[in-house]
């Protein structure tokens, strides 16, 4: 072995020593990483199970919302039917009573005082019928709120599906049909609310008045003719 060979050997030994020192320093770090991964894996498994479970429950919740919307619409329709009948009957009674009153007056007989008081009560009942109908606007507003929630759930489900693809390597597209229900498939206002009506109306009235003052609506001529038919 000559001097050149000795130098090469020494250089190789130095490199090996440097490698061993590097390895000695990185082993603890690698041990930490392995320990971290071992801790994380069960948590990721739990997360995956949770995401899968939520993803299964959301379509069921959507279906239940559709049932709620259907039930409230059916109930509202029944109430409207009854109130319309009541209103029609009250109207008929009121007209009959007015006719009776006129007949009595034509015979120069005074109407029975109780009849007059009954007429007042009928007007009150008619007003109550109108107020019941007005209150049924709640059905339209809640239908929109429910549709908004359904849309939100659909969006969350989409996000969970995308997340699950990382865990399961599933390549199929997210299926939105689980959230499509006739009662929920409406154009909705996500900010629809039943309370605070008078304050919101006040804001609207201010804007309308402001537009009017700035000349947005000058007096217009009303065309009394029917719009021509374009057949």
């Amino acid at each position, binding site marked *: 072995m000559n001097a050149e060979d000795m130098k090469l050997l020494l250089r190789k030994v130095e490199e090996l020593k440097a490698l061993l020192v590097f390895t000695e320093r990185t082993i603890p770090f690698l041990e930490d990483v392995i320990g971290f991964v071992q801790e994380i894996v069960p948590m990721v498994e739990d997360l995956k199970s949770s995401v899968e479970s939520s993803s299964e429950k959301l379509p069921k919740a959507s279906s239940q919302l559709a049932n709620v919307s259907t039930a409230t619409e059916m109930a509202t329709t029944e109430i*409207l039917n009854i109130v319309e009948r009541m209103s029609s009957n009250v109207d008929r009674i009121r007209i009959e009573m007015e006719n009776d009153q006129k007949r009595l007056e034509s015979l120069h007989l005074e109407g029975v005082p109780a009849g007059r008081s009954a007429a007042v009560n009928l007007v009150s009942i008619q007003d109550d019928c109108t107020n019941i109908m007005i209150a*049924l606007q709640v059905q339209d507003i809640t239908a929109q709120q429910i549709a908004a929630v359904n849309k939100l759930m659909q969006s969350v489900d989409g996000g969970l599906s995308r997340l699950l693809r990382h865990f399961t390597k599933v390549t199929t597209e997210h299926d939105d049909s689980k959230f499509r229900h006739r009662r929920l498939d409406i154009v909705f*206002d996500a900010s629809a609310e039943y309370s605070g*009506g008078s304050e919101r109306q006040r804001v609207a009235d201010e804007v309308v008045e402001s*537009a009017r003052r700035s000349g947005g609506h000058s007096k217009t*001529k*009303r*065309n009394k003719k*029917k719009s021509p038919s*374009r057949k």
Partner: protein
Amino acid sequence: MASTKFLVVDDSLTMRRIVINTLKSIGFHNVIEAADGKEAMAKILSEGADFLITDWNMPELNGLELSKWVRNTSNVQAMPILMVTTRGNKEDVIEAMKMRVNNYIVKPFTAQGMKEKIDQILRSVEPKAA
């Protein structure tokens, strides 16, 4: 005034019934209806109407687009328009006023509130001389 022909437009059958019954309770019995803006356009052209009461959020053609069509259609552009909607933000009302709707009601409305708005509009609209 009582002979004014109203067109009520809303995709909710319940709401249409409520508005129609409210109109009847305040003396307006001449009412036709449509379930969306597209159907409303067809009815305005085929049956005619004197006064439009429309919802905003509807499929096919929404209330705002319907109002824009009315204002841009020469033989109906002067038709009074009352927007009746759940949209109560100031920005929504401003947008509706840009489409030149005559007035704006935020749901839920009262019968008295609707009567006041209709009366205001009818007072502001001058009938053509005979």
